[in-house]
């Protein structure tokens, strides 16, 4: 019988496969449930026992993106027959569409603030991590510990001072304010993660580039950055997920112009009864950007998370 130290046996492979599939099912069911609920009618969404097979409808999505009002005879007459598929869906419920809801705008706020703070965090984080990794910085260890210490309590613990600061600086309910806040919170994590990645890149590469006729900055840009891409990508995902999902600060510091999707989605519940399909539709759309971002970078992410775990 052949035996190998590194190659798992057939039985182990099966066992591992079943374990992974089982775990995937457990974690994916809630996700699938949310996505399914978005396509249910309000009745189906609160049916008990829950319905698994149902007639899909886009009503949840229509309700998510529009403002509607209960239609009177006169309104229906004035409006004439429905001209679009979404008007038709609204009419079936005895309502007429009065305009766009604020969801689209709130969603865009999330995109601007989430991706904006992630980008800023990556630029500052990579520069700081590079400096900590390569240069003789006075009090380097103390500074690094200080940076880490900002993570030692939950950010929301300083909510009130931040609220007061924002009010005095006029940053309340602004995109800039939220971008700066999320960048500040994420920066410590990204400096530490990125420093680890950059430490792993041998300094000889940069020295070779310096001798090959490049300046320090060009060496950083052409040699270090491409090699740190994996680390930057995985750090960016962590930062984006935090900024994207953040709820507490968003509730506290935004109410209109700069409100992000997380505090907005629950407010849908109240607008016209318990509209679970609309909430589920909002949650589904909200999931998409992070999912796409993660899938695009997953090659880096996989390598990134295990990178540095093994000392070469």
């Amino acid at each position, binding site marked *: 019988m052949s035996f190998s130290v590194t190659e798992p046996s057939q039985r182990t492979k099966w066992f591992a496969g079943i374990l992974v599939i089982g775990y995937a099912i457990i974690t994916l069911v809630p996700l699938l449930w949310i996505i399914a609920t978005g396509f249910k009618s309000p009745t189906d969404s609160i049916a008990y026992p829950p319905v698994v097979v149902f007639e899909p409808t886009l009503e949840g999505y229509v309700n998510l993106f529009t403002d509607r009002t209960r239609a009177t005879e006169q309104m229906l007459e004035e409006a004439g027959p429905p001209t679009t598929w979404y008007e038709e869906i609204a009419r079936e419920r005895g309502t007429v569409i009065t305009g766009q809801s604020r969801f689209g705008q709130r969603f865009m706020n999330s995109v601007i603030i989430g991706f904006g703070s992630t980008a800023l965090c990556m630029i500052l984080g990579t520069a700081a991590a590079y400096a900590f990794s390569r240069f003789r910085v006075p009090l380097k260890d103390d500074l690094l510990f200080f940076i880490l210490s900002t993570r030692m309590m939950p950010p929301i613990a300083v909510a009130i001072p931040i609220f007061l600061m924002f009010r005095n600086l006029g940053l309340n309910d602004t995109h800039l304010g939220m971008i700066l806040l999320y960048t500040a919170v994420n920066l410590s994590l990204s400096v530490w993660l990125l420093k680890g990645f950059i430490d792993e890149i*041998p300094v000889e*590469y940069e*020295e070779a580039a310096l*001798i*090959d*006729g490049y*300046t320090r900055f060009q060496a950083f840009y052409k*040699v270090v950055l*491409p090699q740190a891409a994996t680390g930057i990508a995985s750090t960016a995902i962590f930062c984006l997920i935090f900024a994207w999902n953040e709820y507490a600060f968003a509730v506290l510091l935004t109410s209109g112009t700069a409100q992000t999707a997380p505090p907005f989605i629950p407010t849908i519940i109240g607008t016209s009864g318990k509209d679970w399909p609309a909430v589920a539709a909002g949650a589904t759309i909200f999931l998409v950007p992070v999912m796409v971002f993660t899938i695009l970078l997953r090659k880096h992410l996989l390598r990134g998370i295990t990178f540095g775990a093994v000392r070469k």
Partner: protein
Amino acid sequence: MAEVILSDVAKSFGSNVALNGVTLTIPDGSFVVLLGPTGAGKTTTLRLVSGLETADRGRIQIGGRDVANLTPAQRDVAMVFQQYSLYPHLTVRQNLEFPLKSPILRTPRAEIDRKVGEVAEILQISHKLDNKSTALSGGEMQRVSIGRALVRNPSVYLMDEPLSSLDAKLRSDLRIELKSIQANFGATLLYVTHDQIEAMTMATHVGVLDKGRLVQFGSPREIYENPVSVYAASRLGQPRINFLPADLFGAAPAGATHIGLRPEHIVQGEGQDSFVQRVEHLGDQTRLHLSFRDHDLITVTEAHTTLKGGDIVKIRPEKPYFFDATGARVT
């Protein structure tokens, strides 16, 4: 190509003195090999010339120009590192093009292609040009990194044990290649190695470094045949030179405490009796491990000797070196 002059150059890392007042002239078109054990200051010398480190004291000139305030890029040097030298995110071709595309050189496309093709041909890596540089074997990687230096036409080539990670066959091929590049193009090379054969076959000059000081500088033969100290004498020679008490074979000059005998400087068949401990047949030569008045020494003899362990052989020193108690040469 250019002459490189170091005048009284010193460099310390914290309390560790790496170079302590080195004065050295690397003539234009010469192949200078720096010899010395780890920590002697060989690599530090290269890094100071390249501009990766700045000297604490002293002056470095390349082609008559003081380079103290110049960046590595401005110094116009090419360097081959011992390892980690290929950019892993680039292909072999991109690696070779990298220095040519630098903002300092800005080589035209046609010229880049011609030079890369030429160097790839010399180093026998033409068929690997479009491979990812990480997909190469160790020997191929090192050839590419030598190639990255060769595509340029710098004032001086700096090489830090470039052949140490290669197998014996490739090493001897590249030795010949490097020597012919230096001879044909008149390139100036500053080369660090541990390997005696590299030093003897390629160098026009050898510098012997000891704890940050240049203790001897001269042609390889000069260093070999006329070492200034015990230390310089032990840098070259395979098997190593024998050191014995000065008066072991009779009268010694005044002040001498040790006699240094190269293995080939022990004449057999005359003189005093010694005892053969072991015989090593290497094919082209045979080494004899002898015991002489309770001292071990090694000599070489003809390949087909019939001597064997336990035999008695007469020996006599020829052209001995005498050293005093500090290790300095007396005669």
